[in-house]
């Protein structure tokens, strides 16, 4: 089955470990944002792993909770003090494009997370791009501790239908 390219008005969520959250200089427990390091590929990774928000039904808050519950139910290591950075696909692609990268944001379901999205053609290391994303386009943040307890795998089918505007890769 071809991968679905996410519409530009949709959103993706990335788990951000505690060490890659930006903290207040006077309070190491106070989170004020995301570090650009959160968007760096690990050695061996070919694409940036994220989760598709609009895959889940409901209003925005319900989608956020469902997406995080799905990530908790996956093989991802989600620690209590982790955060989740959310960004608009079009804005992220725009910042990447302005930095000469033509990224592709593709729905690539995995066994442990059917809402998994791979951001492909992602540079392995570009400090300026990652910092710009962290400062603006991918800077919306929720903390794991603020999301109700629970873990539930993503459903097999997306609540959003491609006929509503998505394109196949």
């Amino acid at each position: 089955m071809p991968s679905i390219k996410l519409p530009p008005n949709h959103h993706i969520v990335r788990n951000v470990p505690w060490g890659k959250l930006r903290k207040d200089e006077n309070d190491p427990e106070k989170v004020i944002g995301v570090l650009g390091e959160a968007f760096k590929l690990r050695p061996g990774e070919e694409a940036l792993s994220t989760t598709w928000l609009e895959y889940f039904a409901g209003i925005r808050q319900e989608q956020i909770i469902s997406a995080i519950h799905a990530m908790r139910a996956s093989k991802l290591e989600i620690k209590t003090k982790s955060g989740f950075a959310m960004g608009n696909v079009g804005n992220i692609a725009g910042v990447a494009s302005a930095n000469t990268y033509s990224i592709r944001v593709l729905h690539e379901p995995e066994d442990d997370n059917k809402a998994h999205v791979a951001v492909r053609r992602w540079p392995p290391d570009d400090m300026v791009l990652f910092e710009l994303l962290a400062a603006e386009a991918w800077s919306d943040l929720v903390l794991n501790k603020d999301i109700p307890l629970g873990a539930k795998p993503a459903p097999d089918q997306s609540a959003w239908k491609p006929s509503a505007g998505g394109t196949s890769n």
Partner: protein
Amino acid sequence: MTMLKTTAPRRGRSYDPGPFIGALPLPTDHWVERRRTATRALINPAPSALHPVQRGGSLSLTERLFNALADFKMKTATLAAAHFDLEDRARLFKQLDSLLDAESWDSGDVVTTEASFTTLLRMVLFLRGRRPALGVTGSGNFIATWTENDDRLTIECKREDRLRWVLVQNLDGQRETAAGETTIPRLPEVLSPYDPPRRWFPYAVDQASA
């Protein structure tokens, strides 16, 4: 958006980094107390220093984090005792405790190295001024950050005083970015075209322009 990927060093005159860590002037106030504190830390060392620890790959993540934390605190006590007051030291230790907490650590990350910590410590001592918040890279380096509204300075501390920095700031509604690699003594000069050094590290800027 103004994009500056690199900063060309100014070569108008030779750059004298001024007194560096090894030659930092000893503070005249309270230095005896600070030496005493450092000595106390050496007399009452961290648990890892009391018992020889395994340094091999058989240690659990929790043990490796514990050992790293103990090493960093010892390093601080020995390297920076004369230059950190008790408040600064307590603040740094609180940051380290929070960052290297096994309950929060991403097991996919390399535990931060002593080489990176040494660079962090030397940079903080050299810059003086405003102390940074801390983060980590996946490859075992510390990240120092300064944030003011939408302005962000982020510096990765690599081994042997090498720094990798990126700056995002807004000037008159225009976003400006810059990034590069340098060494600790050259950092003030490399950042001198931008505002954060003057705002946050006036001592280092004074040194660079002396």
